């Protein structure tokens, strides 16, 4: 068995409004909000690295959980915005947290990396001990690259989220997950070294709006759970319109899908764990009630993960 012990997060102080972000690409803030639901995002300072952000979120999670860094069995860091090909941010983040010596694994997967990390950690934790899964992104460095595309530059923000998975009883039991990967449309969302993000938004939205609900339905069907019976959906915060569309497809009110994209924008692989951390500060996992995590990202990679409160 595997449990969610605790969440953590870290967000930069600097708030970048949609008015400011829109000005980079000749768009007004009303347009930005209409196409994305994003009113603000946070940008880290120049000197901060993905590893810095990851370490801060990881430390926050461990402090909340009361677990020492040296007691971890593994650290996983998901990021699509790492500054270099190798070494990835995991080893530096672990060292900065005081977990040098603990195996640290990079998941270079934009947007869906944290979900894949949770799923893998759930399968490993009984054998290797507590696993700290972190999603960390510094997208501000990337969206600044020229040429800035109107439909891309305004979407992203910086931040990091974390989740501690243990074999010992925690806040929620991880029941099962569905993961998928299909490289057929891999060129529709790419980030080449030193280049701006290339995104075929139509393809991304079309695939995401089909694959996310299908993954959630497939997972819930295994346990004869109807979507309206889910306590909350904690989904990758890509775009408010996508979140609403997934909710509509599943026949549940959008209010069941926790959303903080208005404040932080799309923080890629960090967003789902930042959202989960924020949700869990104001809400409890209720005993026996299902909560569903879901994500979709470049690759394409996608999936859903089911937990139940304990």
């Amino acid at each position, binding site marked *: 068995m595997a449990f969610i012990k605790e969440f953590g997060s870290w967000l930069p102080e600097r708030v970048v409004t949609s008015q400011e972000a829109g000005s980079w690409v000749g768009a007004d803030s009303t347009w930005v909000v209409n196409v994305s639901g994003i009113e603000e995002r946070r940008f880290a300072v120049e000197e901060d690295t993905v590893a810095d952000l990851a370490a801060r979120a990881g430390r926050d999670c461990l402090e909340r959980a009361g677990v020492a860094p040296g007691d971890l069995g593994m650290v996983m860091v998901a990021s699509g915005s790492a500054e270099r090909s190798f070494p990835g941010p995991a080893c530096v983040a672990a060292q900065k947290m005081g977990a040098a010596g603990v195996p640290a694994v990079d998941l270079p997967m934009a947007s869906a990396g944290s979900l894949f990390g949770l799923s893998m950690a759930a399968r490993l934790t009984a054998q290797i001990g507590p696993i700290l899964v972190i999603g960390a992104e510094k997208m501000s460095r990337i969206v600044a690259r020229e040429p800035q595309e109107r439909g891309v530059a305004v979407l992203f923000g910086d931040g990091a989220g974390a989740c501690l998975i243990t074999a010992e009883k925690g806040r929620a039991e991880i029941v099962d997950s569905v993961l998928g990967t*299909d490289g*057929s*449309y891999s060129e529709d969302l790419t980030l080449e070294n030193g280049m701006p993000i290339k995104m*075929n*938004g*139509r*393809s*991304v*939205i*079309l*695939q995401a*709006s*089909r*694959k996310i609900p299908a993954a959630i339905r497939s997972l819930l069907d295994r346990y004869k759970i109807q979507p309206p019976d889910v306590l909350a959906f904690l989904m990758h915060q890509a775009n408010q*319109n*996508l979140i609403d*569309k997934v909710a509509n497809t599943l026949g549940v009110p959008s209010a069941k899908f926790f959303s903080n994209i208005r404040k932080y924008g799309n923080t890629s692989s960090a967003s789902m764990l930042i959202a989960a951390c924020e949700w869990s500060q104001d809400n409890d996992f209720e005993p026996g009630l299902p909560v569903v995590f879901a994500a979709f990202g470049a690759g394409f990679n996608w999936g859903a993960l089911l937990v139940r409160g304990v």
Partner: protein
Amino acid sequence: MDRRSKLIEILKTVTKQETLPEPGDSLFDSGLLDSFALPDLVSALEQEFSIQIPDTDLNPRKFDSIERIEEYLDSRN
């Protein structure tokens, strides 16, 4: 109702617009379809024509005009 007429009705319903571009014109470039209306169009096509469109066929270009949608539907027959 023939297939073209059904298609036009679907597009009007999905986009909530009464005026459609010429059959060969881009539904995206004309401003009729956007990224978030496209999934609704695909779902409506599946329902109306009793087909299951696999994810591997979900290339937006296949649904970029009335004529292209008809070509796609032809390929499924």
